[in-house]
Structures are given as structure tokens and as C-alpha cells.
């Protein structure tokens, strides 16, 4: 297969949300055929420039976004494609070291103390990985002090806080207060979860609120452009 054909295969595989050979893919019929991960490994073995592969990732996700906007794709399709890119980035990243534009920034994310819900958080992780961010997941029921410590350690550009309950969303305010008390002012805090709102985000001093995972990507892109 020529390099051009190989890159086109990767692009198509991402658009079809075909992760790997074990994945059933777009319509349940793709199991047993090479998916994005295998194709990227094959391309690297064939000495394709990693930067070229990265360019294909971006182009494929742009097309997925277009299909979603057009109503042809639904969120599960988008998630599948994002997961392809996220997993393939793990394969590609060691080969990109030292080159420019390897990542858009680091995003730390946690479900706050007292809250065990993580579906929304996990979807945000998948989408942000697919969009090219370095994501660190602190898990669920994370105390404010642990979050502040993790921010100090990893120095992310962005921090995501998630909560599903009206009783736990107030913990987000505690995290933001403790960040300030620790003198940390250079991390942008984005909050999300069913009971939260733009108004609540402003009230507790967060830098942004996102209604869903798609908006999380949009908000981060906007913050990145503004910085």
C-alpha cells in the first residue's frame, strides 16, 4: 500500500469510528479488520512521518464534526471517532516528541468529593483526547485538597470539575477557593454536570461552564485561542 493510500485508510477508519480489529465499528460489521490503532502502527513501521499522520487525525475529526453538524452522525459516532484518535495518539505520541504542535495542552479532570458519577466526565475525556489534548483523569469522589495537589504537580493549563448532584456541586466552589488560597491562578477552571449552569460557574468564580462534551471541546478551543 502506498503512503498516500495508508493515510487515506487511517482517515477513513477514524471517520468510521473503527478503533481496532476487535471493534465492531460503524455498523457492527468491521470486527476482524484492521482499525485505526493497527493502521497507525503499520504506517509508523513503514516510516511514514508522524506529523503527516497527525495531520490526518485533524482532517478526519474535522470531517466527523461536519457530519455531526449535518445531522448525519450522532454523539456515539463522534465518541467512537474521538476514541480512535485518543488511542492512536498514545501510539503516535512517542514518535512526535520534540516536534512542534504535539499537543494543545494538559487538561486535568475530576468528579468532586461526595459524587461518584463519571459518565459525563469519561465522555469529556474521550472527546478532549480526540481533539488533541493531554488528559489526566483524577477519578471520582476526589477531595479538593487532592485536586489542588494534582494541579501543583502536573501544572495543567485547564482543570475540569464534574458533579451530577445538587448536593455535591457546591464542592466545586471549595476547589476554586482552595486553588486561590494556594496561589494558583494560571489554570483555567471549567465546570460541567447536569445541575450546573453558566450562572453557577460565574458565581463560584469558574472560567467557564460546558453543557456537554462537545461544548467542552469548544470552550477549551476558545480559551486556547484567547490565551
Amino acid at each position, binding site marked *: 500500500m502506498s503512503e498516500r493510500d495508508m493515510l487515506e485508510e487511517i482517515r477513513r477508519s477514524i471517520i468510521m469510528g473503527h478503533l481496532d480489529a476487535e471493534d465492531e465499528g460503524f455498523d457492527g460489521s468491521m470486527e476482524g479488520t484492521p482499525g485505526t490503532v493497527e493502521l497507525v502502527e503499520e504506517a509508523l513501521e513503514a516510516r511514514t512521518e508522524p506529523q503527516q499522520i497527525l495531520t490526518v487525525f485533524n482532517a478526519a475529526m474535522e470531517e466527523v464534526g461536519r457530519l455531526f453538524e449535518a445531522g448525519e452522525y450522532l454523539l*456515539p459516532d463522534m465518541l467512537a471517532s474521538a476514541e480512535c484518535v485518543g488511542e492512536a495518539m498514545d501510539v503516535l505520541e512517542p514518535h512526535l516528541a520534540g516536534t512542534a504542535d504535539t499537543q494543545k495542552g494538559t487538561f486535568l479532570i475530576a468528579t468532586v468529593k461526595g459524587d461518584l458519577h463519571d459518565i459525563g466526565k469519561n465522555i469529556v475525556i474521550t472527546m478532549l483526547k480526540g481533539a488533541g489534548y493531554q488528559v489526566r483523569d483524577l477519578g471520582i469522589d476526589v477531595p479538593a485538597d487532592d485536586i489542588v495537589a494534582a494541579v501543583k504537580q502536573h501544572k495543567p493549563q485547564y482543570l475540569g470539575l464534574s458533579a451530577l448532584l445538587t448536593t455535591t456541586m457546591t464542592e466545586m466552589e471549595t476547589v476554586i477557593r482552595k486553588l486561590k488560597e494556594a496561589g494558583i491562578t494560571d489554570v483555567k477552571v471549567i465546570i460541567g454536570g447536569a445541575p450546573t449552569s453558566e450562572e453557577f460557574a460565574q458565581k463560584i468564580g469558574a472560567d467557564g461552564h460546558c453543557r456537554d462534551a462537545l461544548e467542552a471541546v469548544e470552550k477549551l478551543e476558545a480559551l486556547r485561542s484567547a490565551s
Partner: protein
Amino acid sequence: MAAATMAAVRKALAVDPATRLSADRVQSIHAASLELLDDPGIWCTGERALAVFEAGGCRTARVSEGGRQDGYRVRIPAAVIERALESAPDEVVLGARDPANTLVLRGKEPKVYFGTGSQANLVLESRMASFRSEEAPEQAAMLPVYSESTGSIAHLCRSAHLAEHLSNVDFFIRNVNAQDESIPSEHRDVNIYFAALLHTTKHVQGGLESLEALQPMLRLAELVATDGAEPGGANPGGANPGHADRGATGRDGSVRGLPVSFIACPVKSPLQMVADTAEKVVAIAEADVPLVISCSPQGGSTAPIQEEGMVAQINAEILAGLTLAQLARPGCPVLYGAVPVRARLDNLHDFYGAPEFVHYNLGCVQMARSYGIPCYSSAGVGDAKRPGMQATVEKLPSHLSVAASGAQYIHYAFGLLDRTNVFSPLQAVLDDGAIGLVKQVVRPCSFSADDLTAAVEEIRSVARSSGVFARRVRKQLRRGVVGDAYAFADDGQADRVLERAQRKLEELYQLEPRRLSDATVDRVYAAVPGLIDRRMFDIR
């Protein structure tokens, strides 16, 4: 001669039928209906119908009853009715301009088609307009504004075009009463049917205002049936099994039934056979064209209000019409036409939003199925005057319940408002969305043992990994195991159902009409008298 084949036909919604009556009650109602047809029997004034009944073994007696013109009491013995039920075919094929839109109805099979209905006098057109609150100018909204006009041939053409493009409309009953003064009354039938046939490739059905129009109508239907088919191809076997109706043979040798069928209402409730429509039943039966024997008693005025009385009476009335048709031509294709409605008790108008409307219809569906005769049923009518939430709420109980009952042929389902007086294209688009949901709700559970094994494996796998099933939804979406969202759902905070539906309506109006070929139109004009200037059928 090569055997005729049935090409792919329009897919029906198969359901596990919901029932309201026990088997014992169905039998009891059947017995009650037979009793009514024997005593008092049917009041009949039409000579032609009377002759058919007498030749068929019914007892007739000329009587003079208070307050009525002299007529005949026709007592129909149970044995005559049972024979008629045996000869009525279980399967009725309703052809279409596009053979892929052919409908196959089987009396015992609960497979559902939805279509338009009534013959509304008024058409309610709509457009969106922006409004701003006088008290709070920062509050603005987009809302529909309406204009009501008398139904015309132009409205009918646009309505047929709309029905062509609404995905859940399976058949088209002329739903607008075209009242153009330029159409001579003796030629109304051919012009109305031609307007519909010109703009939809789906099955077209309606009444027959004049019996003299039957032969020109059949000629029109035959010519339309050959549009795009092998020139000169006659239907070798007929689309309705065992009957030589007037279809055509497609290029693949498949049978194409006539693209039209008729509705007749031979019985005026309670139990009075009308001379004019009874004569039409006989003529249409003799022509072997599919026919709906439709009856519409009103619970509380022309029938008992309680459901057992209503169903017993309407069943008797339909059986009387059906027996007349089968005596006129044994084996002619008929539909059991049930349009039972309840009276409002303040003014005795039809009350379609009443729960009893649903109860009556469900009983009729079961009676028809017990006879193995396809059921023409009614759903999707209400009393609301404007499109939107109230109208949809009133329609939904019957849309859902009658579909769940497995009625084969549900009319009235699209766009009717103010009972059956107004046709609203905007409401038709909303109803199409609601019926899309109804189809998802009533489809039967179909998983196999393999599906369950695969599901367990999926749960096991996801529980060990991400905990999120969302990306695995894709296979089920593409298999059609799960449905789409409501067609007009909004992804934001605002509810813009009417705005979205209006936009869709305008998009559908812009689609290219699926007209008959010019050659067929020329042949129709050469062979069928009374058609108005062809430019009056142009919706562009």
C-alpha cells in the same frame, strides 16, 4: 402463461396486537349483530340493492313505518352473512403508481398502514411570524400565523404532493374537498382523482360522488397504472388473488394493482340502507375494484353510546354492506370500514377527542380480525382548531392505540383539525413526526437468544472498561433496533417544534413533484372526458 409475481411492496408496521375485547365478547358481539340483522333487519329503499338481497336469500317485506317513506325491511339470515364472510377475501391488494408503494392487507395479519382521510372543506395554511411583547419588548417569539381558505383543486394537488413526501404516509385519501366552481359537478370525480394521481405515487382512495363516473374513473386508473410499465401489458392474474381486476404488468412481470380504490357508506345509522350508496356498492363490487364498506354511527345520537352497543350496531351495519357486495360479486375485495365516533353531549357534534372514540375503534378492529377481513380504521382526529400541542395530544391516544391494535389501514391520520373540517399541512407534518414515534413505540420486541447472549457479553465488556455504552449504540442504530429521536426535537433550551415543522413543510413544498409522465397525461386527456385545463393541476 407465466405466473404473475408480487414485486416488493410498501412495508407495513407489524405489531403484536393489543386487544380490548376477550374472545368471548367478540363472539357475543357477532351474535348480537346477527340478531340485529334478522330483527329488525335493514331498512332499504333502493331497488337494486333490494334485488341483490332477495336473490341472495334474504327475506324482504314492504312496510310502511311511521315518519318514513315506504320501503322494505330486509332480514338477512345468519347463514347468508356467514357465506358472505367466507367469500370475502382475506387479502386485498391496493396498487399504486409506483409498484413499490403497493399495499398488501391481510385480514388476520396485524400489519399497519397509515394514511390521510376525510374531505375537509377548509385548508389552514401557515407561515411563521415574529412577535414582540408590548409589555416586555425584550421578550420575542416566532409563532405561526394562519389563513383559512375554501378547499380547491390546487390545495388537493399540494396536499397529494405533501403526502408523497411525508415518509409515514402510506396511502392518500383525498383529504381536501375541492370546491372550484370551474369544475362541472358531473366531472368532479375524475378531476379529484386525477389531481391526486398526478402528484403522488402512493395508493389513492376516495368516494365516488356520481355512479356515472365509475367507468371513466376506471379508465383513468388503468392508464395511470401503466405509467412506466410495459406498453400494452395487461394484468394476467389480477392483483387481488383470484380476481381479474384492472391492473398492469410491470417490466419485471410483477402484478400492479389499480392505483385507486373506493369508499362507500351504504348504511345510514341506525340500520338504514341508502339507495344511492347501496347502488354504488353493487356497481363497484361488480367491477371487482377494492372497496371500503364504511359506516360511521355516532354514539349517543345514531348509535348507543356504550361501547358494546356501538360495536354491535356498527358491526351489523358493516356486515350488511359487506353482504350486499359479496352477493353482488362473490369474492370481491372489501375492507371492513369502521368510523365509529361519539357525540358531544352539549351539541351532538362529533367528539373525536373522547376516549370512547378509541374504545369503539379497538372493538371494530377485533371484529374485523375475527372475520379475517382487513380493517379500515380511524385515528388521529381531534377537536383542536389550530396545529400544535393540543391537537397532537388529542390525536395521540388514537394514533397509538389503534396502531397497537393492528388495524391494517388507518385513515384520518394526517393533518385534520376541528374534527374533520379543516386540513392543516403544518399539522400533517407534525402528525408525520408523531406517527414516526408511534411506530417506534408499538413495534414488537424482536430479540433472539443470540441477541441476549451478545448483550450480556457487551455488558461484561463495558463494565470492565469505560462503563459507557454510548459508542456501542452505533450497531443498534444502524440495525434499526433503536429509533430516531422525535423529528422536531430541539437541541437547545428553546422549544421550536412549530418553527421546525413549518420549515420542513416549506422544504417539502419545494421538492420536485413526482408527476405522471407527459405521455401518460396525454393519454389520459385523450381517453377521459371532463378533465379541466391541465395548467390547473400545476403546483409550480
